């Protein structure tokens, strides 16, 4: 299987960046969720203040998902670095799974918006868009760019 070396380099770089960001966001989220679970004040205050701009919630399962997506990118990176061009499949699947999860979180956000704003459910009064804005959504934009950029390459990745 022969691939354009320039494009291959782009995918390697993408895997490094995406893998790092997903694992970083996942790790922070994991620490915050542990903090919330065991009520560790120092960790909780970190989440509320210093890292607030990253919109990272204390969501345990979500943190594992982010780390998993990052690991898929890193696995692909490892294969590509070792000269296995099939490693591109990892980049492709990483992008697809990250897009699936971005969609999942956007649907959750849409559901809560409907519940709060359209149905005025008293159980979730005071809900704001920021409450459900998760790292998986904004990191998904990066994956979307990768997908749009290499859509054709992925379709023909076996050739």
């Amino acid at each position, binding site marked *: 299987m022969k691939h354009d070396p320039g494009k291959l380099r782009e995918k390697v770089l993408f895997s490094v960046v995406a893998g790092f960001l997903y694992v970083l966001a996942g790790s922070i989220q994991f620490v915050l969720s542990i903090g919330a679970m065991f009520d560790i004040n120092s960790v909780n205050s970190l989440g509320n203040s210093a890292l607030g701009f990253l919109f990272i919630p204390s969501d*345990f399962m979500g943190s*594992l998902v982010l780390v998993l997506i990052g690991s898929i990118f890193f696995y692909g990176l490892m294969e590509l670095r070792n000269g296995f061009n099939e490693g591109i499949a990892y980049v492709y*699947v990483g992008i697809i799974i990250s897009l*699936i999860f971005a969609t999942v979180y956007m649907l*959750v956000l849409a*559901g809560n918006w409907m519940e709060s704003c359209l149905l005025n459910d008293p159980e979730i009064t005071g809900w704001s868009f920021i409450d459900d804005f998760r790292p998986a959504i904004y990191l998904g934009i990066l994956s979307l760019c990768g997908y749009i950029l290499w859509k054709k390459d992925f379709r023909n990745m*076996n050739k």
Partner: protein
Amino acid sequence: MCAGEMKIEKIRVALTGNPNVGKTTLFNVITGSRQHVGNWPGVTVEKKSGFKQYKGYEIEVVDLPGTYSLTAYSLDEIVARDFIVDERPDVVVQIVDATNIERNLYLTTQLMELGSKMIIALNMYDLAEERGDKLHVTKMEKILSMPVVLTIASKNIGMSELLDTVITEKQKVKHHGREIGYGDEIESRIIEIEKVLSQDKDLTSRYPLRWLAVRLLDGDENILRKIAGSSVATQIKTILTSLDIEEYEAMMADKRYEVISAVFPQMCERCMTRMTTSDMVDRVMTNKYLGIPIFLALMWAAFELTFSFATPFMTIVERIFVWLGEISAAYIRPEWLASLVGEGIIGGVGSVFSFIPNIFILFFLLSMLEDSGYLARAAFIVDRVMYKIGLQGKSFIPMLLGFGCNVPAIMATRSIEDRMDRMATIMVVPFISCGARLPIYILFAGTFFSENAGTVIFCIYLLGILVAVGSAKLLRTTALKGHPAPFILELPPYRIPNLNTSIRHMWDNGSMYIQKAGTIILGGSVVIWLLAALPWGVEYGSEQTFIGLLGHAIQPLMEPLGFDWKLSVSLLFGFVAKEIVVASMGVLYGVGDDQIALTDSLLADPHLSQLTALSLMVFSLLYMPCIAAVGIIKKETGSWKWTAFSVAYGLAVAWLLAFAVFHGGKMFI
């Protein structure tokens, strides 16, 4: 019949072929049926028939279970073969996957021996051509001595041509088929056995003798049983015992493959197997380290959406039923009738209806995963783990079907060849959480774990799988001792899920719950209302009513699990159908289908806590699914003993684990 009216001629067609080649899709397109089509092998386990009026003919189409050969090792293979042999359809249509002709030809070589009129439907030829294959249809017809029709069932292409060919074949007076030559040694044995078989006129009239002889030399026990009552049975046995049947079986299979590899290159050019995009994606999805985490992550996403995204739709349904309840309270007289309609019927049915959006969303997501081809990979990934614990991965397919409903899941175990594997799978499928249990989890997880409800529900589903797998291990090392049979699963190519198909699957699976709400749940709600209202004069739903007395009678058994009499009696009614558990909660708390009021009542109940909720969810997950599931276990095992064991074992496991959760959890919560 009026004068001049023409008599409609009937044609019976059997659709056969390897698993997952599109038989059911083709069947649905021709007959206009809506049988479940799955992107994994083994979806059709029973034959199904449908009719089509075409050019003055009434064509009965019978969809047979997919089979790789006619060796009849599993129940679905026997169903397929017996139909062709015993029912003698006018025409047999073998659906062949055009992207995988070589493998499909093995079945063709065996079908040819049956002497039936045959047609090959070369399905999904667009995919073959897309990848550059050149199909030589005319040559194929010549070599196989049967018509070959190009079809794309999913796009309704080639159907008229196929039906026209069916009519032409039916009208043919003489049929010239091809046979495989097995070489001098085997052929002389075939002739010898044929000669003996021909002495039995009954056998001669019922079966093609050469086929019978070939099957006997192939060591087919099912055929041996068929001739057991024949006058020539002893003679045949003597011949067979003098031979090394295993060697003959291997030699005959070799011969078939030899023929296939000789003729195949003449039928198709460039049809070699190359690594496809699907294969490359599988490198990731079935990766040793990433495969299971990806599977778990996708399942978690499905449950997260089932809970979070469905909530507004649930609220809408709930408000409609609350409004109906208010109307009935305001306008219906006398008061007891208003209570029956409002609290009993609308409350009971409404409390189940409120969860229909969740059920539909879960089914929609599962059918998207199935249609994409991913669930077949899930079975493959899990096989590694399952084989280690004594079950084969094929058992996981019925388990996945069990997420919808345990009844078809138990029926789907027919595709498992090994009897021990099959029995073990039947025993553990009830632990897989079906859609009917979802309302219980949504109610209790939503009430007591609102922030993490999706994750709690996911964990409950996961627990079901773990208990099923653990129980399988236990059974395979005790009552059903033995090694699991090796599992060969053909992974279908990935496909972008079709929205219409997914919606149809969602409806097919979910509509059952709407029907149940209008029948069993409605009846159950009336019974529960009566028990909660009688004897007259006592407070509705109080401890003095019949339901209260019943609850108190079974409470001692359930108290160690943290359940009061209301929870105990609700679980008791859950034996009929699991949705009734939630319906009876609404009735017992006197809030009907008002979920917010029910949530508030549950939170205010001093007997209930997060631990009770967890314990209740665990018990609901594991104890007997419903009456219908028990019925199907009896039917599929053919044994009251195993059926009773399944119910008792489920109850025992449910009780023990709920007890462990309730008391063990006290250390953490």
